[in-house]
């Protein structure tokens, strides 16, 4: 089976499984909303300071929900030894990584796409601009690409749920920084020239992250 056909097959499997159960998606969405509401209670958001806090709040919600989704993506494979079945397939191990990365990105983007309109209504922040969605896309890819690698690392360990965020968050500091800064600038209505450097940083991180993960994934997943 050719490389890309294997990748597509794994992605299709994940998407189909998720479409039937919708477990991960609903968990991620509800958790993101809960985070937003909790922050509101804790920080006493008022109309005048919403724009200062909104970018950080959005990305914290995405990070927490994202970690939840990443944990489940490999946990589901461990159940019934699916991961061994995947590894027996006659295809480069990196195909598993690419497929998992794509499906994790898809799930996160879906949850984010459902979250943002609700957030917009609750906090009266406009989320219609395409620039915002570009930032969200690039940031999510960066987060998911590193996250998939570390999810595989944490997968076999007893302290799986703690290890993933502890390992992942230091590495995605550039993503969080660039994403929150550019989100703030987009929400304030600044021009593309203002936040283009952040977008470039995000793009560079995404590419480097995927390349390094593809190179190191096989060492992490062999038994």
């Amino acid at each position, binding site marked *: 089976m050719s490389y890309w056909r294997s990748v597509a097959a794994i992605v299709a499997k994940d998407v189909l499984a998720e479409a039937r159960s919708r477990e991960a998606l609903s968990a991620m969405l509800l958790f993101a909303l809960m985070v937003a509401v909790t922050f509101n209670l804790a920080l006493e958001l008022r109309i005048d300071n919403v724009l200062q806090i909104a970018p950080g709040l959005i990305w914290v919600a995405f990070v927490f929900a994202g970690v939840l989704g990443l944990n489940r993506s490999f946990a589901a494979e461990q159940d019934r030894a699916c991961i061994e079945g995947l590894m027996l397939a006659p295809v480069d191990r990196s195909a598993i990584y690419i497929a998992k990365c794509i499906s994790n990105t898809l799930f996160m983007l879906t949850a984010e796409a459902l979250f943002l309109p609700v957030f917009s209504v609750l906090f009266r922040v406009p989320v219609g601009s395409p620039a915002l969605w570009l930032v969200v896309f690039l940031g999510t890819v960066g987060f998911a690409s590193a996250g998939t*690698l570390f999810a595989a*690392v944490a997968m*076999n*360990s*007893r*302290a799986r749920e703690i*290890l993933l965020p*502890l*390992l992942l*968050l*230091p*590495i995605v*500091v*550039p993503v969080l*920084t660039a994403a929150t800064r550019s989100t703030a600038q987009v929400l304030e209505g600044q021009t593309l020239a203002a936040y283009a450097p952040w977008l470039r940083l995000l793009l560079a991180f995404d590419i480097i992250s995927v390349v*390094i993960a593809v190179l*190191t994934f096989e*060492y*992490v997943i*062999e*038994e």
Partner: protein
Amino acid sequence: MSQDQNDALPLVVGLTAVLVLFSLYAVFIFAPTERVMGHVQRIFYYHVASAWVGFLAFLVACASGLLYLAKRSPRWDRVTAASVEIGLLFSTIALVEGSLWARPVWNTWWTWDPRLTTTLVMCLYYATTLMLRRLGGSEERNARVGAVLSIVGFVNVPIVFLAIRMWRTIHPAVLTTSGFAVAPRMLVALLASLLAFTALYVCLMWTRIRVARLEHDVSALRHRITATRP
């Protein structure tokens, strides 16, 4: 470890002691007193030296991680584990010293300044990788995963460096585009401290790797004995 290498250790320790004594002289006697902050500024020398050795250690860990994946020899895993441990030790020392310096000068023990925050985050990451090793799993898997984590984890170091450029910060910048922003005699003290701490790093690595080798031998011997039990 060969006997010759063990015989060289006292020499290295002796050299380190000399360098340390020289650095103490340089820091407390040779270096001038800073105009604004006074004597408390002398924390700077050990603070910077600790931080740099931390970065060096993590760089070594990254390199030995790559070597392990290439050669699969347990020796490189021992280097990685030792270097991460010692790097964490020196980075933590740097954070504490920085905090002790900040209290009289900035009037606070801690700020969420980017340089401090990214350093703390880096320490948490490497502490997690050390914790991962204790959670069990085969020696081979721990070595493999440890190698990947120390390779990827090295990205923390440039993040700490570039933190000053990415955010506004109250943390002073020593290395600027126009060269060292430090008086000549202070530079000498700084370099002396760097040298002394690097020598300390070598000593600590030496002893730590020797212990790791012992652990490996003990566990191998234990396996041999239990494998032949009826």
